[in-house]
């Protein structure tokens, strides 16, 4: 659409700008302010420069949390995106079952995050939870409060349970936008199932899948409540993801300087990775 140049449009953006700036700029400035200062209490602060940033960037603890975060985000993306696409492809295209599927699938998305954690906490308990009890009944030694591997398995299964539906709904929306004529043409050419997927369905889903990967990347990188309620970051530190570690430092130990420096580094990592991904997909879109 060709848009007209009109700087008066700024007035329409003003309310949004005021609200978001109030919520984003002031707290961000507070964080920046803390990140360069040292305090011994009583609201007395000293300027420290980039000391906290150096400390955080060199700390083993931060590296470990970041590594766990990357492993978690990578794993859930590798599971949720293909699984979501597969489910979307096999969903009915019309009829009464469509609504039933959509409503039931969207249900986990609207459960408060700590309730999701609580549900899985109960569901996976080895003595009274259905999952824990069944796994132990089948001969697996499973107890997510003691074994790091079991804790990771539960955490990933929980995230797949919680968010795969988002990918399904997005991919399904992309599939619905393909006109029937495309499929008929493919039939006339006697194209294989794979060819239909590769050359018709996948390109049409590309935009929505980009949104899906971006949303899942950002949200899984910021995840806090669900794993915190499920495992509290344990056993030991084995499921302490970045934001759990951050809240521990900021609100648990009240180390404002390091916590603020870590916040900024954390935010920059999310921004950078999102930007890289965004530019890469845009570039490949331009080429094709």
């Amino acid at each position, binding site marked *: *659409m060709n848009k*007209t*140049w*009109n*700087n*008066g*449009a*700024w007035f*329409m*953006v003003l*309310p*949004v700008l005021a*609200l*978001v700036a109030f*919520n984003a700029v002031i*707290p*961000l400035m*507070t964080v920046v302010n803390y990140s360069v200062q040292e305090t011994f209490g009583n609201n007395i602060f000293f300027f420290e420069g980039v000391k906290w940033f150096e400390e955080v960037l060199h700390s083993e603890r931060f590296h470990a949390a970041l590594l766990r975060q990357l492993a978690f985000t990578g794993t859930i993306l590798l599971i949720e995106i293909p699984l979501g696409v*597969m*489910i979307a492809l*096999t969903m009915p295209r019309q009829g009464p079952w469509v*609504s039933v599927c959509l*409503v*039931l*699938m*969207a*249900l*986990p*998305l*609207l459960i*408060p*995050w*700590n*309730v999701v954690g609580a549900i899985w906490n*109960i569901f996976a308990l080895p*003595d*009274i*939870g*259905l999952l824990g009890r069944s796994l132990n009944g089948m001969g697996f030694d499973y107890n997510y409060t003691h074994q790091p591997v079991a804790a990771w398995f539960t955490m990933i299964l929980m995230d797949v*349970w919680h968010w795969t539906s*988002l990918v*399904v*709904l997005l991919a399904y*929306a*992309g599939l*619905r*936008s393909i006109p029937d004529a495309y499929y008929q043409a493919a039939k006339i050419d006697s194209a294989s199932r794979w060819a239909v997927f590769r050359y018709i369905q996948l390109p049409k889903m590309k*935009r929505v899948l980009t*949104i899906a990967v971006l949303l899942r990347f*950002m949200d899984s990188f*910021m995840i*806090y409540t669900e794993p915190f309620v499920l495992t509290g970051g344990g056993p030991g530190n084995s499921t302490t993801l970045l*934001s759990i570690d*951050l809240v521990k430092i900021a609100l648990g130990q009240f180390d*404002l300087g390091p*916590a603020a420096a870590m*916040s900024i580094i*954390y*935010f920059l990592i999310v921004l950078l990775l*999102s930007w890289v991904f965004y530019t890469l997909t845009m570039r490949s879109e331009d080429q094709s």
Partner: protein
Amino acid sequence: MKRLSWLVPAFYIFFLMLPIYWLLNMSFKTTNEILGSFTLWPTNFTVENYVAIFTDPTWYNGYINSLAYVSINTVISISAALPAAYAFSRYRFLGDKHLFFWLLTNRMAPPAVFALPFFQLYSAMNLFDTYIAVALAHCLFNIPLAVWILEGFMSGVPKEIDETAYIDGYSFPRFFVKIFMPLIASGIGVAAFFCFMFSWVELLLAKTLTSVAAKPIAAVMTRTASTSGYELGLLAAAGALTIIPGAVVIYFVRNYIAKGFALGRV
């Protein structure tokens, strides 16, 4: 193979329902039954847990509080996002692309980063522990999302409609309310759905900004879990009740959900 493909979604939905079933199952049991034996359905069926919630004000006020700030947030987000989305979809102006990207970056800010500064900011403004504090704080991620969704839907409406309306003598506010908003009604519905959803499920900020008067239901649950020990039945009942508002909202938007999740941009 084609005939068996319905098994995939069916199995997936089965997997989704299992933990929810377990929650419901537990909510209808007595604490003794939960801890004492492993049963696939309640043998001593009881609604005691639900009665306890509906007769104790600290419990049911949690629901009222949550619904209150979620509704306020949805109204604020949508009314602020409507003109902004119109500006982005119809006009070019100084710094528009940068502004749009900056708005979206706020969707990427981890709430954990903002928890402490938010607490200080809203305490300083004497808004701590009020509905409006949580509603305003949730604007941080809901407004960018609402602008993004609405802009997608608005760009689907041809510009000629605006121009024709002006020629017919409509003023801008009248055109916007009488003609334009009905045209993007489904978009407004979808954006409202998303605002409701993210405000309803978010807890870290909501919990940080409230203590007693505006405490959300989900936070009441964590308190109960820690102070009164192992009242799993009560906890399960409270959890089951938090699913209902979401289910109601999904039911109303079920026909737009597929398009809406693509943010109007397919």
